Each structure stands twice: as structure tokens, then as C-alpha cells.
């Protein structure tokens, strides 16, 4: 591993720790401010996922797994589509066409507002789930050779590119 020399990366770790909450906050801003400025569910989902992925790159996939387990990512993927389609079905149940938000509230404009809100939320949830799920899939599903050679003890899954802290003894194992 000459490309990424194994260091403690203290600066990266501290900066990441500071940055991640703001990344997620900005994602939420983009999500809920999409009516007024650029942005919307898709961009917000990507940004929120990027926050988690940044965390995973620096602190290891395992830590992200603890925060957003793969099962949660999977549920989020489905949930978002369900929210979106559910909004459409709800508008049908309330007497309109599919995804016709006018009927969702007494006032068509309010209905539109609610409709767009929930639809964008659905997009955001799906995109976040898919992106985090992709990261889990790419980063931690390792081929068996890789795992066998790395000589890591069972259950300790080191992050994809740069293991944050690894003792020199493990290094010499390789």
C-alpha cells in the first residue's frame, strides 16, 4: 500500500468529524428548500449519502454499518418509492388523477405543496438508501481471496481504501 501510506490521518479524522453534521444538514436544507432554490430530493439524497460515505471512508465501513445498517439502506430504498407511489395513490383515492396533488388539501395550492413535499421526500429517501446501499455493497462485499489473504481476524472488516489504524504487526502479516 504505497499509494495510501498507512497513517493516522489525524487531520482528516478531525475535519471529517466536524464536517459530517454540516454535510447532512446541508442535504436536509437542499431537500426542504428545493421549492425555493436549486435542489430537491435527488440532490439532497446524494448529499446526505455523501456525508455518510465520507464518514465511512475515514472511519471505516463498520462504523457506517452501525449507523445505517445495510438492512436500513434496503428499507429506505423501498420506502422512498412507496412514499412517492403512495402519494399518487392517495391523490387517486381522494378523487383526483394519479399524482394530481390538487385534491390533497382544501386549497389546490396547499395540495400541490403537500404533494411536492412528500414526493420529494420519497425521492430523497430512495436516493439516500440506494447510495448508501451501493457504498456498502462495493466497499464491504469483498471477494473471498481478498479476505483470506488479508489475514484479518473474523469480523473485523477494514475499510475499503485506507484502514485508519492498523498495528504494524498486522501490516507485517501480509
Amino acid at each position, binding site marked *: *500500500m*504505497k*499509494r*495510501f501510506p498507512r497513517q493516522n490521518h489525524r487531520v482528516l479524522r478531525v475535519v471529517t468529524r466536524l464536517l459530517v453534521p454540516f454535510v447532512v444538514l446541508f442535504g436536509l436544507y*437542499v431537500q426542504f428548500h*428545493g*421549492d*425555493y432554490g*436549486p435542489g*430537491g430530493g*435527488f*440532490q439532497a439524497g*446524494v*448529499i446526505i*449519502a*455523501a456525508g455518510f460515505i465520507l464518514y465511512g471512508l475515514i472511519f471505516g465501513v463498520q462504523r457506517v454499518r452501525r449507523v445505517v445498517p*445495510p438492512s436500513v*439502506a*434496503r428499507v429506505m*430504498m*423501498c420506502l*422512498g*418509492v412507496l412514499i*412517492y*407511489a403512495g402519494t*399518487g395513490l392517495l391523490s387517486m383515492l381522494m378523487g383526483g388523477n394519479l*399524482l394530481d*396533488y390538487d385534491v390533497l388539501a382544501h386549497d*389546490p395550492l396547499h395540495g400541490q*405543496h403537500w*404533494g*411536492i413535499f412528500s*414526493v*420529494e421526500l420519497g*425521492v430523497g429517501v*430512495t*436516493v439516500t438508501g*440506494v447510495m448508501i*446501499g*451501493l*457504498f*456498502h*455493497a*462495493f*466497499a*464491504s*462485499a469483498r*471477494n*473471498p*481471496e*481478498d*479476505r*483470506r*489473504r*488479508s489475514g484479518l481476524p*473474523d469480523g473485523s*472488516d477494514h475499510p*475499503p*481504501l485506507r484502514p485508519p489504524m492498523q498495528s504494524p504487526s498486522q501490516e507485517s502479516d*501480509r
Partner: protein
Amino acid sequence: METLIDIVLLSFLIVIAIGIIVLRDLLAAVILLGLYSLVAAGTFVIMDAVDVAFTEAAVGAGISTILYLCAMRWTTDRQKPRGNDSLPALVFVTLTGALLIYGTLDMPHYGSADSPAQTHPEVAVRYLERSAEEVGPPNIVTSVLASYRGYDTLGETVVVFAAGIAVVSLLGLRRRRPSAEGEEHDKGDPPDGDGPGSAARRDGSDREQVDEPPEHRA
């Protein structure tokens, strides 16, 4: 001034694209790909398409760079040496490209006010004039995406969902870390029992997957 910025950004794009093609080092190519997306996002901002630029910057420069890097763990980080480029292929590609460029000559100029997309009474004109009273959000892009064209966006969301499900079921999200060991061996390649010198032996052969972790070869 805007033309100047356009020229600079577009020539950056060309230079970066050529760099990506020429480079054999996949890590550098991936980083350049991210840079390409960033510059492309810049050109979108110049065209006042901030929403698109936003998406391009977040997805192209952010997420996909990381996914490429993660995917590189599964292969090598060097491109295989290419064979000789064949002349007929070059002629064919040039011809196709020239045809495509010839095809664009018919299109309305960028930003032209009398292009059909701008003048159609039920599309752009209606959205611009009536979206405030019909839908509400000041950002017309949002009202088009989420309300006027909500059905399309539903389709897009389903596409993202389907792509995610496909990747997850192909690569697998492991549920349990340690106990999944045996099952993993079944799913992956047949483990061939050669030691850490195997990558060197395999170089130049047609085997695509080299299953050494990147650090051994770097």
C-alpha cells in the same frame, strides 16, 4: 466574457477527456473523471441550469468517484495494455462522429427564443406563465419535476430503486459479518489456491480479475 469562460471550460473538458483516455493509471483516470464532472457542472452553471449543475457536481464529482474507487478494489488499478488500434475502427468512429455533428446543425441554436421548446404553448410558455398560480413553488424546475412531470419523476425514482436493488443483489449486502464466511466462498469466484505471487504470473494473460488487494501491486 461569457464566451471566454465557455471556451476555457469547454477546452478543459476536452483536455480532461483526452487525459482520461490516455492514462493507464485507473486511479488518476477516476480522479480526472471527477474533475470532468466538476468542470461540466461549471458549464451548466454558465448555462443557468443550476439544478442540473448541482446534480452533476454531487453525483458525478462526488458519489461516482467514490464508487469507482471502491470498485477498483475488485480489479486492478492499471489498465490492460491495449492492442493495436485498427484503422477501419478509426475511420468508422470519425465518420459516425461527423454524422452526429452534422445532425446537430439542424437543431435550434442554444437559447434561441423561437425554438419549439420555448414557443410551444402547452409546455414552456404555460409552465413559465402559470406555474405560480397552478403549483406554487418559486422554483419552476421543482414544479415541473415534481408536479407537471410527476409521473416521469416517479419513473426516475423507480429506475434509481431498480438500479440499487440490482447492484445490491449482484454484489450482496452481507447481513452477518463473521458467520457468512462459508456462504461467501460459495458466492464468489472459485478460490484458486495460489499464493501472493500469482498476480505477477497472471499479468498479460487474458484473465480479467486479479484478486489481490490493491496495496500489493501499487
